[in-house]
């Protein structure tokens, strides 16, 4: 696990995330993860006729996100927990960065593997900051360094350290708790991150946001992520590769989302992929793949009248008010600016933004629920990037359809 040392700090310059291609591993410089190999790994429980996991062999490339999907009870969680030895394999070998997981003390091993679970499992008696600082503390960092790291991590997952550091978990919403859970998992900068349905217990909107955040984080950090989910759409959205698992964790298909959608290995996989596989490919396109629109912007302390004039001069229907950190806070039309004294509370608040890593599907949803028919795009840490309008999405859909009609003959129907 010596590759561990290569990382750190490389994310800052690449905040915009991966380029168009989904293959970060080949991108190289941002990868801080290491390769995980499972070789004929099995788990048998005494007194049970069939093994829970039967002879799984797979390679998870460094810096990739691999989603393990399958019906509940198929052994995907067991498979994942064998990587950090919360469950000891009965046979087979697991290497992490070339090192045999079995050669390490389980506690030492786990301190180098981030772990985030559906129930979050934050320590209720510790503050948010203490929760995030646990693993750095365990591996013996100085307290000053831990404190810095805690703030850095909270910032990374989009929580203001000053506001949240000293809160207790019960004072947070489900989504915020999950962010803290991810921050805790990443705090000691582990090359590998295991996530067991981490977004399974939050509402759909929050889940979408958290997924976007994870994509953004991963673009910065380049960890090796093993992500367990039963939601195929989530796997498509997050995974560089997807392993569709059957009973006893047997691998039915292990490939890129595009390949699985276009060409399911068998009927079981096809059934799991579900109807509308073609449409789901929409979910493979990201906001960053399309050209963003521009609208006039103003800083929150600008005079409302100046902004109104700019809007009417530019014949723009509306504009965005940004705060000091260039985060969009309010959306206003020229009419709404008449007679107001401050931009701080003009128009209406910007509630929901999408990120460059969001899928077009998410953007479309945001557009449909927005009065002005746009989705505001914010970069990492909330900075304004542009807007996506309905026209842009329609154009993309048309292009996509044309492309698929052209290649339909070559595809294998399921």
């Amino acid at each position: 696990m010596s590759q561990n040392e290569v990382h750190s700090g490389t994310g800052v310059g690449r905040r915009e995330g991966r380029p168009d291609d989904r293959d970060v591993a080949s991108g190289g410089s941002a990868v801080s993860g290491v390769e995980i190999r499972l070789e004929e790994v099995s788990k048998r429980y005494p007194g049970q006729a069939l093994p829970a996991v039967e002879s799984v062999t797979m390679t998870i490339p460094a810096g990739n996100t691999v989603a393990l999907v399958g019906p509940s009870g198929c052994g995907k969680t067991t498979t994942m927990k064998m990587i950090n030895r919360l469950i000891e394999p009965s046979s087979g070998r697991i290497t992490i960065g070339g090192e045999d997981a079995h050669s390490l003390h389980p506690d030492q091993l786990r301190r180098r593997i981030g772990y985030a679970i559906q129930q979050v499992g934050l320590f209720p008696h510790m503050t948010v900051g203490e929760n995030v600082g646990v693993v750095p503390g365990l591996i013996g960092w100085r307290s000053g360094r831990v404190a810095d790291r805690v703030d850095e991590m909270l910032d990374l997952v989009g929580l203001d350290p000053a506001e949240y550091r000293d809160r207790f978990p019960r004072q947070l919403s489900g989504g915020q708790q999950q962010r803290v859970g991810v921050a805790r998992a990443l705090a000691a900068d582990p090359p590998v991150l295991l996530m067991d349905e981490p977004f399974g217990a939050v509402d759909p909107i929050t889940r979408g946001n958290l997924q976007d955040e994870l994509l953004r984080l991963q673009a910065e950090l380049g960890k090796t992520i093993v992500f367990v989910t039963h939601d195929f759409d989530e796997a498509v959205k997050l995974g560089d590769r997807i392993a569709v698992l059957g009973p006893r964790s047997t691998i039915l298909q292990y490939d890129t989302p595009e390949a699985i959608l276009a060409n399911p290995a068998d009927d079981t996989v096809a059934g799991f992929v579900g109807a509308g596989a073609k449409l789901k490919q929409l979910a493979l396109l990201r906001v960053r793949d399309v050209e963003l629109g521009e609208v006039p912007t103003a800083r929150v302390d600008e005079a409302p009248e100046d902004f109104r004039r700019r809007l009417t001069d530019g014949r723009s229907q509306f504009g965005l008010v940004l705060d000091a950190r260039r985060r969009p806070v309010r959306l206003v039309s020229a009419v709404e600016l008449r007679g107001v004294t401050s931009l701080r509370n003009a128009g209406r608040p910007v509630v929901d933004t999408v990120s460059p890593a969001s899928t077009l599907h998410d953007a479309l949803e945001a557009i449909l629920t927005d009065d002005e028919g746009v989705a505001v795009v914010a970069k990492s840490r909330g900075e304004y990037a542009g807007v996506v309008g309905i026209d842009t999405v329609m154009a993309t859909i048309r292009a996509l359809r044309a492309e698929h009609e052209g290649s339909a003959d070559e595809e294998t129907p399921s």
Partner: protein
Amino acid sequence: MSFWEYVGSRWEQLLVDSYLHTSAVVQTTLVATVIGVLVGVAVYRSPIGSTVATALTSAILTIPSFALLGLLIPVLGLGVRPTVTALVLYALLPIVRNTIVGLSTVDPSVRDAARGIGMSRLGVLTRVELRLAWPAVLAGMRVSTQMLMGIAAIAAYAKGPGLGNLIFSGLQRVGGANAINAAVAGTLGVVLLALLLDAAYVLLGRLTMPRGIR
């Protein structure tokens, strides 16, 4: 001699007895807490172990204190030793029971997460589970202390220390000038100290309860 005159003339003795009474109860509660928590930690993962430990300690509590003291006298003699032994035994059930309940109601996902991020077993126990079980343990200690205050009074029968001596001396000097005064002082003293200790527990709870789970 009125009661207040009695108290005025004997206040030094009363203070000594109160101190000895309280100190015996507090110390035995602490010993019982150490034993009780260790027993709880040892058994809480095993349903059978928990059942046996709880059944045994609750059977102990069923034993009349006068009888237990009587049984201890031939073995341990008189005075402090049978007193301390009896008090520790009686204090066990509430603490063992509450430790087991406290530890077994820790959210499994919290335990899973703690193991998953690489805390050692001992670390999970001391830094997570016992912290979360502490309110329950403290509640058990509180019940035990209240019980022991009364039981300790009986220990004076076996020449144990504390306010029980006043009660028994009242009994022995029946008809004497200060018989009632002594018994009243002993009984009221126990009630008063019990209330004070209870208040101390409330304060201790405030001070030691982790803020995040209060």
